[in-house]
């Protein structure tokens, strides 16, 4: 029984297994010297063979990515990797996804819908080994954040769309088309636009919160604040809180923002740095204040969980985008699916459920018809003032992105 349990443990604490084996090994082998010689000899040669080959720059370019053989006609399916709670679900039957099911019915293309993305960086390290080798990742569509689109494009990892199968591409809103990371939107189509803002539990926080700086500094919130573990989100909040602009900042200002976060963390203000799972602690009342993605808290439908629509300093605007990775097996089917979601009605139906900002012309009008209460929510249909105060995150070079991310993670301890 000990055996089975310790095996079970070892699945979660991988190094446990190594260390405990190391102990036994050292007694049986190293101490007796039976294998020591072998390790030394084999080690020297094996060590040098352990390097990992990097990105072999293949034919194809940043503009096109690399197409593999398209099996769309023979295999009527498409594999769609998305984030959890990012699709409409039938309230009566959790297994039914109305918009997706309608697509399957219309086209006969089966959709393998996987809610497996929880963190942009996590996901990148998951698909990167295949992309580096130049092989199919197994996914036809994946949803990644705006700044990651730039990273995928730098390494030539995503394919350009064939607009023949995407006629609705022309329905994208002008401001969506003029995207700094992907001008013309030929490689990425927004699944959702949203804001990063602040939300609090009014049962636990008596004085309403109206600015970002409060969550970092207000003494009564000590140990109750949850921030995001993604660098862009939290650093943007820290920049805004200090009156700086996340769209244009210098190295020194970045350091200043890091220092601001570090001070709050060291003072015990921050309870946790969380990923996409921040809502469970927030709902349970364990965190009283959290950074929040605009649609999430509205989706919970609890009156005591309040989202600050427009903090004094402003908001961070972002988009999560559908991209087609290199060598996707069902590119054409993927484009058909994206085209389907670019219809105003479908977009409105999706928006109505996931509560994020649509990016298609006519979607807002369709939403007003479908659900006028949702259309009146400023985080779904933002006001002029919010649009004016919303900031994007500065485009970073890969070297900067890696450097900033690792320095940020140094603080968060995630």
């Amino acid at each position, binding site marked *: *029984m*000990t055996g089975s*349990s*310790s095996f*079970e*443990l*070892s*699945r*979660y*604490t*991988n*190094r*446990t297994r*190594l*260390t*405990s*084996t*190391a*102990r036994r*090994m*050292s007694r049986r082998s190293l101490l007796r010297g039976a294998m020591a010689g072998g390790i030394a000899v*084999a*080690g020297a040669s*094996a*060590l*040098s063979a*352990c*390097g*990992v*080959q*990097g*990105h072999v720059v293949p034919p194809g370019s940043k503009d096109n990515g690399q197409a593999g053989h398209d099996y769309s006609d023979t295999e009527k399916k498409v594999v769609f990797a998305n984030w959890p709670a990012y699709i409409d679900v039938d309230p009566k039957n959790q297994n039914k996804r109305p918009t997706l099911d309608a697509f399957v019915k219309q086209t006969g293309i089966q959709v393998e819908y996987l809610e497996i993305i929880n*963190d942009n*960086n*996590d996901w*990148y*390290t998951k698909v*990167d080994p295949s992309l*580096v080798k130049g092989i199919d990742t197994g996914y036809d569509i994946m949803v990644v954040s705006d700044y990651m689109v730039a990273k995928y494009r730098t*390494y030539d990892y995503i394919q350009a769309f064939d607009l023949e199968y995407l006629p609705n591409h022309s329905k994208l809103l002008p401001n969506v088309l003029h995207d700094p990371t992907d001008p013309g939107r030929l490689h990425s189509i927004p699944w959702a636009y949203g804001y990063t803002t602040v939300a609090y539990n009014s049962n636990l926080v008596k004085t309403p919160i109206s600015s970002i700086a409060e969550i970092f500094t207000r003494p009564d919130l*000590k*140990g*109750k604040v949850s921030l995001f573990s993604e660098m862009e989100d939290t650093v943007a909040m820290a920049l805004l809180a200090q009156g700086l602009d996340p769209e244009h900042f210098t190295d020194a200002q970045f350091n200043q923002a890091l220092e601001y976060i570090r001070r709050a*963390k*060291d003072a*015990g203000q*921050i*309870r*946790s740095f969380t990923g996409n799972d921040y809502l469970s*602690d927030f709902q*349970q*009342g*364990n965190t009283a204040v959290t950074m929040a993605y605009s649609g999430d808290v509205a989706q919970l439908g609890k009156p005591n969980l309040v989202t600050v629509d427009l903090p004094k300093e402003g908001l961070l605007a972002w988009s999560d985008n559908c991209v087609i990775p290199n060598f996707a097996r069902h590119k054409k089917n993927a484009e058909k699916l994206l085209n389907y979601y670019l219809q105003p009605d479908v977009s409105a139906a999706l928006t109505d459920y996931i509560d994020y900002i649509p990016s298609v012309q006519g979607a807002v009008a369709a939403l007003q018809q479908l659900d006028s209460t949702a259309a009146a929510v400023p985080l779904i249909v933002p006001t002029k003032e919010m649009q004016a105060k919303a900031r994007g995150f500065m485009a970073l070079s890969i070297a900067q992105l*890696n450097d900033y*991310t*690792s320095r940020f*993670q140094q603080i*968060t*301890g*995630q």
Partner: protein
Amino acid sequence: MTTLTEAPAPVEERAPERKPRRNWTPWVLLLPGLLWLTVFFLVPILTSVSASVQTGNYDDGFKLTWHWANYQDAITKFGTQYYHSLVYSLITTVVCLALAYPVAYFIAFKGGKWKTLLMALVIVPSFTSFLIRTIAWKTILADNGTVVHTLNSLHLLKITTALGWTVGNHVLASPAAVVCGMVYNFLPFTILPLYTSLEKIDPRLHEAGADLYCSPFKTWRRITLPLSMPGVIGGTLLTFIPAVGDYINAQLLGNPNTTVVGQRIEDLFLRQTNGYPVGSAMSVVMMVGTLVIVMTYIWRAGTEDLL
């Protein structure tokens, strides 16, 4: 010396009776084990040692450059995490031992016909996933839960907060919560070996102690404790080794100021494209460190032959 020089004679006498054929059976029997160790121990160890002195990133590849500075990074940048891992696992081991000994003692000597059932009760919770059991602690220690309310109304949390064990008026997201989770998760691993060695002790030894006017405590200290030392050593090792590498408890029950080595390694491996080398260096440091601690412990305890 004389015995050594004389010894070969009887062997030579017996030698002709044995067939001079080489016996391969032990080797064949060892083969699966050796293969297993080679593939799942030796190769991964070599890979991580190699990775720990490489430089590069995912997209440009990693090259073996004998970049020993990775070790410097691993130790200087993540000193706090090493400290946390060590302190939490040591406290866990001590608390586990203190809790487990009476339990094991009771089951072994007073359990009677209920022994098996009682031991089953100790083990059965481990059939649930480690992860689920840890998440359950989030509910147990929730800010609005009974436990925290009780502790608050007794003003106990003020004391623990002053000591730095908890933060504010809650228990979750604090060092205390991490240690609680670890103690709960590893307790069966301390109880089992303790029980096995206590159960082997002849109860008549206790009677003999009493007959010789030994107080119950003295009997325990002079007879039971020394005889149960193998269980104590085994139990503490089985607790300490997994505990020092555990990061699930710190991840789920801790806060940003309670991070342990495992969390940083996970992060370097899973979320940073250039994290392999330093992550591997951290693993190697951790492995060697644990090995040194454990070997010293076994050596000091003088029970090498018991393991």
